[in-house]
């Protein structure tokens, strides 16, 4: 295997892990974000308090420390998991906390008149959220959600530090074995950019498509 074939093969394997981590963590973050955001708007003080604690803990500590904690500390309490599971869990929980704030503020930004019209038409609270408020809030949230997705994607490079063989991990291995530091880390830089850039564009397009002629 030639030098370049080796690089492409290893980085390719790493890229698959990076993308897999991104997709799984993003799904978890989105689900947690919506649940958390809606709970934050609950009438029940206790429910709001629970979410506030979750959000503050995960915003107030670093993602790297959370990764270490879930991967290295939880096993001491008998909770052992694979590096991939730990990575998805840590990143999903961390970004879920931020997403819940995006969801909350998105829902609160929808014109109060929409709620009044829904009450006048006798919608239940759940019907109102599902049919009227969330579809409009989602469009307002899109730019923020897009930014977060890209941040999340880039943050997956941290998972190399809990032995998950992602793109950054493989680049490190290659660097240690070949010592071609410039080429390898430049390639790494380019790959991250080439993925992140279309993501930005894609979110912009989605935004345009969803608002076309409507708002």
């Amino acid at each position, binding site marked *: 295997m030639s030098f370049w074939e080796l690089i492409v093969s290893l980085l390719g394997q790493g890229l698959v892990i990076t993308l897999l981590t991104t997709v799984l963590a993003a799904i978890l973050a989105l689900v947690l974000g919506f649940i958390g955001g809606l709970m934050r708007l609950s009438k029940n003080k206790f429910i709001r308090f629970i979410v506030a604690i979750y959000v503050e803990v995960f915003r107030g500590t670093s993602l790297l420390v959370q990764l270490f904690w879930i991967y290295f500390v939880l096993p001491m309490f008998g909770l052992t998991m694979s590096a991939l599971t730990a990575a998805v869990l840590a990143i999903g929980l961390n970004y879920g906390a931020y997403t819940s704030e995006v969801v909350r503020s998105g829902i609160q930004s929808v*014109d109060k*008149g*929409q709620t*009044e*019209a829904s*009450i*006048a*038409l*006798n*919608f*239940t609270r759940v*019907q109102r959220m599902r*049919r*009227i408020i969330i*579809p*409009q809030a989602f*469009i307002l949230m899109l730019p923020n959600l897009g930014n977060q997705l890209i941040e999340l994607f880039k943050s997956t490079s941290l998972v190399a530090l809990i032995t998950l063989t992602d793109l950054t991990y493989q680049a490190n291995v290659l660097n240690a074995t070949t010592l071609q530091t410039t080429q390898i880390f430049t390639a790494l830089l380019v790959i991250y950019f080439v993925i992140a850039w279309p993501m930005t564009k894609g979110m912009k397009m989605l935004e345009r498509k969803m608002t076309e*002629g*409507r*708002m």
Partner: protein
Amino acid sequence: MSEPIVRYNNVTKYFDDLQVLDGIDFEIQPGEKVALIGPSGSGKTTFARLLMTLEEITDGTIEVEGDYLWHEQDDNGDLKPASTEHLRKVRSNIGMVFQHFHLFPHMTVLENVMEAPVTVQGRDKKEAKKAAEEMLDKVGLLDKADSYPAQLSGGQKQRVAIARALVMNPKVLIFDEPTSALDPELVGEVLDVIKDIADQGDTSMLLITHEMDFAKEVADRIAFFDGGKIIEDGPPSEILYNPKAPRLKEFLERFMNTQSSPE
């Protein structure tokens, strides 16, 4: 006279320490069209919003067709705050058209009108579509069925909002300053639609308005609000041409002065 469709009993409303309604008694008869006039801050909008359950009642009771709106009777016959189910059941008799339309921007005109019949009333989609199209035809906007609200003029938006409220078959329809947010040249088309509904329907109407000519034309009765009370209440000819209360006289004079154009 038949049973009133709406009855306010000693209704009081506070916003924190500010009293906006002061022990109001009022009745609306089935099919009756009542216009509410008065200076801004006099309580007329809050009066109507209590009936739509957009504001919570502080004291007193409101009955709709003999059912309490904000209350329920327990086994001993004592009043307790209404459950959500009870509130929704009684509220289903009431509809409202807002000053700023509040159409659903993410839905087409047809979807706006169909949404509540399908989601809230559980009506069959085909039937609801037909009913919605009928209503849009009634307000003269069937050709805009597939447009989005953002593509309509203010007058058209308000006519869609009227169709959206009507398709639910409310027994009482509230209009909260339906033309105040419109450009002057668009006021007429909306008033025409409201007039049509008033003429053909047995829907009771509660119309908050600053259009005195229109109130005179449409209303069976006008109630004048001031300082959280209904000061005077009677047929348009009495209220507008033979006012008794000094506050009403003053209000009408000021109103005519600002309305008359210097020709």
